[in-house]
């Protein structure tokens, strides 16, 4: 099954939980918990604490991230908040401000 898509122009405010993939092209505020990959695409804006196995940030994310597997901040992506993850990549051109906890 395809997962959830918060399309451009859509605003979700509150607590979002899902067992499937979540793609954010629009705006999401609150908390986001997913059992699968969360992708914040180029125009996506997320102001939420985020918990997911894997997180891809190509848009804007403001909030703390807890990823059991990995966090990838792609070029053009912007993350403000603390990251707790097994792996973290920050691409050239990405912005990041916050603390990193990688279970060292």
């Amino acid at each position, binding site marked *: 099954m395809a997962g*959830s898509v918060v399309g451009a122009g*859509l*605003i*979700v405010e*509150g607590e979002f939980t899902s*067992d*499937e993939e979540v793609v954010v092209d629009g705006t999401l505020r609150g908390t986001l918990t997913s059992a699968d990959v969360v992708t914040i695409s180029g125009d996506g804006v997320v102001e939420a604490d985020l918990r997911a196995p894997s997180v891809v940030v190509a848009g804007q994310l403001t909030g703390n991230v807890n990823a059991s597997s990995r966090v990838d901040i792609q070029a053009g992506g912007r993350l403000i908040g603390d990251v707790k993850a097994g792996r973290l990549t920050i691409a050239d051109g990405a912005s990041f401000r916050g603390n990193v906890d990688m279970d060292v």
Partner: protein
Amino acid sequence: MAYASVISSSAVIRGNVRGDGSLQILGRIEGDVGVTGDLALGPDAVVVGAISGARIVIAGSVEGDVTGSEAVVISETGKVVGDLSAPRIGMSEGALVRGGMRTDGVASGNSARRAPAARGVEAEEERSRPVARPAPRPPANAAPAASAAGSSSAAAKRPPPPPVIQAPRAGARARKRLHKR
């Protein structure tokens, strides 16, 4: 499908969802949902809160008011506990509804562009209906009166309706009597 946004079947949202574009809900939303585009609720979708959209198709269940600016369609698996309001409301056999229904929703007509004009005409029709009804009747009755009474056609135009209505009856009776004799 061609929906801009999708809330998947395993997804649960506690909070509000609003914005532009179309939305397909397959999961559960506890909060109000308002979009400018079309809104579809899959068979397993549950929304506890008011929903609004352009064209709303409900195959799941809604506990809250439903407002469609174009239409609301409830499929056979659909269930709504709340008031329905839309210019057009469709229901399949098997659909469950508990609540009020209004088909004179926010926008009427086929397109939003013509909505204000259409609304104005409808309102005017309703307003003028009680007044307009008696008016066309006398001329309709006056025509047979004129043919039956012949010379009194000019006089039949002016007098108030009641005498005019009675006139053809009297004339008809008189003619029948004449024919019998």
